[in-house]
């Protein structure tokens, strides 16, 4: 962002542990804002905070029912107001987000951002309560919805296979918490736990607020200046504990689907420095992402084994997953091909052309991330987590500094951990 004059980044510390990051730009017709609370990722707290998000968005003192709350968002030109819990590496992030059209584009240029922020603050600070507790019927209904969502994981077999791989691979690690939440743990959540979780957010959890839109840093800071958030510790993301798999485990399960789903999980410790993380990005690009990548060309195009065979890196945790879908009779061939392609990079390296094309593709993605209010805010969040000043110039330079041997080192550092296969029950060969 610092590269472009039409973006103005400013960081304001409202008070210790509560910071506002604003990117002021007139490029967009919509603005994006998120209030993020950072907490350790634990199996005990994760479902409580997820449920808390659902309950907080059910009703406020001023808009006590879901209908009244939704009516208020509709009146604000279909304001999108969401609260949810996610994880970045082994950190839990509880986010309250809003996306709305800029005041200049409402009918009659009606100003809506200030009212939108007020609504977000209402959800966060003034939820509807009865006798000091969250409304029991809301809690009960949201527990059912959350339970149904957990049970519905089997409906999407790609996602299901990924979660099962995660459960096996990171069984005792915080990283797999989202995959390990069970209906029973939702059923056990009490009203008291929800109240405590809410208090913890408001009193203790470090807060980072991100805004991208037409308003100045001063205007946004003014909108948040009355937030009852006391001082708290600042946030720093920790390094994951290194894990070295003893064997390459194979887990096979069956289901009634036609197409077999497979996920191969790897680990790497090479994520400690900015250069190591940039090398992982380039490895990912060259190995599996683009239509000229090793897996696309060799596993899909040359062998016609699958429609997709793609990797997912997580530089916060140091894991890399390759997912694919194929015939039952072909899953071992797909796995062998993936391993062979990895071995080829480890032994023979990558070409200068692959490196150049990989860099160009990543640069395209970095530049493109400045093209929406949402992606600018997300990029800012990741920069802040890494204690870096947001901006695309630094990221472009970093990718440019990666050498072919760095990519090979990343390939060599990947240790296969778990091969998860969800076999189809109906043979199609």
């Amino acid at each position, binding site marked *: 962002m610092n590269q472009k004059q*039409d973006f103005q980044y400013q960081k304001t510390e409202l008070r210790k542990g509560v910071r506002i990051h604003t990117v002021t730009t007139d490029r967009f017709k919509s603005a994006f804002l998120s209030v993020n609370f950072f907490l350790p990722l634990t199996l005990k707290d994760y479902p409580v905070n997820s449920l808390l998000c659902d309950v907080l968005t059910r009703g406020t003192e001023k808009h006590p029912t879901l209908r009244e709350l939704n009516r208020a968002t509709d009146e604000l*030109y279909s304001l999108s107001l969401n609260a949810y819990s996610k994880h970045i590496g082994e950190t839990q992030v509880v986010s309250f987000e809003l996306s709305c*059209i800029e005041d200049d584009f409402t009918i009659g240029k009606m100003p809506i951002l200030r009212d939108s922020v007020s609504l977000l603050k209402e959800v966060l600070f003034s939820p509807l309560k009865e006798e000091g507790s969250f409304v029991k019927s809301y809690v009960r209904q949201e527990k059912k919805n959350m339970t149904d969502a957990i049970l519905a994981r*089997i409906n999407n077999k790609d996602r299901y296979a990924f979660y099962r791989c995660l459960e096996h691979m990171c069984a005792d690690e915080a990283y797999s918490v989202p995959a390990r939440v069970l209906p029973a743990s939702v059923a056990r959540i009490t009203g008291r736990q929800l109240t405590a979780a809410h208090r913890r957010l408001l009193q203790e959890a470090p807060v980072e607020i991100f805004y991208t839109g037409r308003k100045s840093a001063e205007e946004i800071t003014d909108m948040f200046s009355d937030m009852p958030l006391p001082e708290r510790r600042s946030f720093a993301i920790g390094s994951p504990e290194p894990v070295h798999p003893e064997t390459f485990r194979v887990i096979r*399960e069956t289901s009634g689907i036609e197409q077999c789903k497979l996920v191969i999980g790897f680990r790497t410790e090479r994520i400690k420095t900015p250069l190591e993380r940039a090398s992982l990005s380039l490895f990912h690009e060259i190995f599996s992402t683009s239509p000229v990548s090793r897996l696309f060309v060799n596993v899909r195009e040359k062998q016609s084994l699958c*429609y997709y065979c793609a990797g997912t890196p997580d530089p916060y945790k140091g894991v890399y997953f390759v997912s694919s879908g194929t*015939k039952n009779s072909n899953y071992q061939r797909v796995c062998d091909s993936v391993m062979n392609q990895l071995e080829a990079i480890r032994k023979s390296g990558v070409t200068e052309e692959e490196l150049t094309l990989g860099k160009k593709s990543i640069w395209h993605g970095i530049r493109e991330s400045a093209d929406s209010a949402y992606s600018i805010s997300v990029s800012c969040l990741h920069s802040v987590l890494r204690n870096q000043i947001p901006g695309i110039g630094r990221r472009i330079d970093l990718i440019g500094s990666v050498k072919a041997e760095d990519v090979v080192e990343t390939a060599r550092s990947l240790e296969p951990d778990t091969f998860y296969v969800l076999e189809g029950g109906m043979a199609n060969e």
Partner: protein
Amino acid sequence: MNDEKTVRIDSIGEEYTVRTHRSGLTVFTIPKKRSEIYAVLTVRFGADDCRFRPEKGKPVIELPDGVAHFLEHKMFEEEDGTDSFALYAQTGAFANAFTTRDCTSYLFSCTEGFEENLRILLRSVTHPYFTEQTIAKEQGIIGEEIDMHKTPSETVHNNLMKCLYHVHPVRNDICGSRESIAKITPELLYACTDTFYVPSNMSLIIAGNIDPASVMRVCDEVLPEEKVPMKAVREPLPEPESVACPSIEELSEISQPMILIGFKAPVRNDPEEDMRVTAANMVNMELLFGRSGLFFNRLYEEGIINDGFDADYTSGFGYAHTAVYSVCDDPEILLEEVMKEIDVRRKEYFPEEDFEIAKRVIYANGIIPLDSVEESALTCSDFWVHGQDYLRWHEAVSGLRYEDAKRVLNETLRKENFAVSRLYPCSIPFRRRH
């Protein structure tokens, strides 16, 4: 080039310029201050174009299901054995393609090398190359794509289409089946490209920070000097107004039943009328089933539906329907509630105040996507395919009259034209193997 026209809508800060290239290609440029340039070349040939005469007087060609999508995959291959993905990669561009019921679109997005990428796009889509070998290779890949799409949500949707339509190709999957794509030959693919892949049946839409002159220069370089007319005559089978069957039920490995309730609606052949009716239907969907409506909130609070509940209106060439979707413990209760609500609202429409707020929601939902070069270009393309101007959508919504929306509700949601697709959980437990 000729008939250049610029359309600007100040209230939403949008504009485009449209030109017709000498080859017959329609070229839209949408100026946007962005790092990324997004280009999409759309051919009016989609999954539903499976019955046509190459020109008047010639015999009808009937295609197996999935040909348009198969073609989309094959257009990336060059005669010298390379593929255009490798060429795009030289500039770091992202390239892709997709097939819908009505069209096939080829696209790239880049932040450098725009002209070179545009050359690749125009060349690859106007220079088809197919052989028995390359087709056989693709049959394996697409076979896996077909299996990948066999998900519960696709199944419940495909079954509803089979209920609503007797003969319209919207009944069939865009990718076809393993059996139907096995029938594809180079001759069949060439028959399609010769007929439909002509510039006068295509549009090129480019959104971003671009110089329109450079776009026309590349078009001059790559495309034919003279207009090649599109002579195809589409010969769709007549689709009755009634539904084909009232219900399909199936078992699937899912956690809760899924239900999709469909209402077959009258087809509007006039593009202007279709846009007005679509705006009315979307406002009606918001009023009937939107998040701030009585219906959604009552059923949500009673635990009959959850946040996944959805309702939508879709129309295309020769088809139009509304679909109401939910995952729920008891699909019969939801069905009864939906039918009851429609019955009530047919008799007594919504208050004007609610109508105005619903319009505001649909209006705003059409503005936020215009921030993205991708969404702007694809929206423009989608409207072009249907003979419509995407910048008139906001006017169609804001100008919608209460009485018209009320009339459209009665025309669209008719009890005699509904069908239901249900998917129930089967009891096959997951088994662990050792």
